[in-house]
């Protein structure tokens, strides 16, 4: 049983993907890291499902 969704959950996937990439445009590596840290904390709290978050951590580390 997995808590983490593996199928598409976005209606406009390309738009969201590019919005994330564009938000990093022109940032230094350090600024990117700080931006991502804020973004992750905001999203993680919104998701609120510890099992899904831990699974995502594991899957991201495995790649």
């Amino acid at each position: 049983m997995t808590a983490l969704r593996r199928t598409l959950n976005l209606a406009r996937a390309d738009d969201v993907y590019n919005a994330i990439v564009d938000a990093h445009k022109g940032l230094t590596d350090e600024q990117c890291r700080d931006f991502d840290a804020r973004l992750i904390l905001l999203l993680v709290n919104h998701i609120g499902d510890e099992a899904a978050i831990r699974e995502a951590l594991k899957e991201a580390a495995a790649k």
Partner: protein
Amino acid sequence: MSSYTYKHYPYRRAPELDGKGERRPVVIVGAGMAGPTLALELAARGVASVVLDEDDTVSIGSRSICQAKHSLEVWDRFGIAQRMVDKGITWEQGEVYLGDQAIYRFNLQPEPGHKFPAFVNLQQYYVEEYLYERCLSDPAIEMRFRNKVVGVTPHADHVAVEVETPDGRYTFEAEWLVACDGVRSPVRHMLGLPFEGEVFHDQFLIADVRLLDDLPKERRFWFYPPFHPTNSVLLHRQADNVLRVDFQLGRDADAEEEKKTEHVDRRLRLMFGPEARWEHEWSSVYTFTCRMLQRFVHGRVIFAGDSAHVVSPFGARGGNGAIADVDNLAWKLALVVAGKAPEALLDSYCSERGAAARENILNSTRSTDFITPKFPASRAFRDAALTLAPDFPFARALINSGRLSVPTVQPESSLDTPDRDGDWVGGPGPGRAALDAPIGNGWLIDRLGRDFSLLTFGKDDVGTMPSGVTTVPVVSNGLAWQRYDSRPGTTYLIRPDRYVAARWRTYDPAAVSMALDRATGRSHA
């Protein structure tokens, strides 16, 4: 320099130096906060003890200053907690700043109806002074100042203790030796026991100063304050208008240089402004470690407090953890010494307080990692939480400037009886600390007995109880009923260390008797 006058306590020639004396039931090494507290707890249960200390005065420097509610409740049994409250600074609120902006405020005791506040800040030397006075007036406690332990030889049923005094050396025997001799524990070294854990390299400067102005009462913690922009600063108020200022200096600071008054003054001037006036009390540059012994009981030698485990100062878990150790140990050791419980009861001291030490180390390490991030990504997440905190309440909860000491949970202890009735929606379950509440004109914690207590709700006569069990009927509905999730008939069995051993929805004498046997190690139901 110091506003505190150090008393010197009397040295007396030990009778063993003249060939007198006999084997002692309990010898305690170290007269810090834990040793004398243990001696008082044992004396209250009829067990005499000898306390050995290498010097003849109290803690040099303020050291442990945040005395938690649960420690005050322990000391209240010996009539000295109110004195600490009167002398110290009561606080329940704290503020966290990012730069010069307050981003988070917390209240550790948001509801009224407790005899003691969440914290009283009082320098360790006062706590020890009050403890020593109380110990010196108790005929069952022998305080031996300037008696330094230089040798420990464990045997199957006792420990031989070699002691150095101004009049020479003597050896005597203890049925049980309790080492409350601090983080550098000579007893631990003499037994060659490994003390493993994590070493932290960040340096901190403590400056205790008497500020001759108005002082804030609450705890304040700054990340990147304008007066110390690269690191953090913690501020605590203590008795006698003394402030504890704790500056994070980083890894590369020169400790000897930073300790100099001119450098301390420069930092304080930036912090308090051009008009402020102060006098120095005590300064120290420190680093810290989180370590623990694998086991706290080694044959007839028992470790308690910093000798058994040590944490970073963030969270006030050192001194308060030590008091919780001896509170857990005292009643068990008293039963074992009196032959009323098997020695195996002490295994539960090891498992319960070992779990507590691991919990304290976990919390303290997390606070330390938040305050002193070890790698760039760790700092990025820390700063992200700080940056989001003003606008996002969830991020305030992530700010970890120290998770302050509360009684630890002791899940699945062999002494506790798991809930049988499945309809509990609140209240402290087995393995949790009992809660205070107003009862009549007084407090619930004052009604609990020295040994086991039975809280009965809505039932004022439960018939004959086994000896040593104090019955506390809670008749009228009120806060106590809410805090214990009670209905008429609800019954709680409370251990001598004020942890819940068992609870039921109806009073059943046979169940109480079984739970009592289990809680004293006489059976494992």
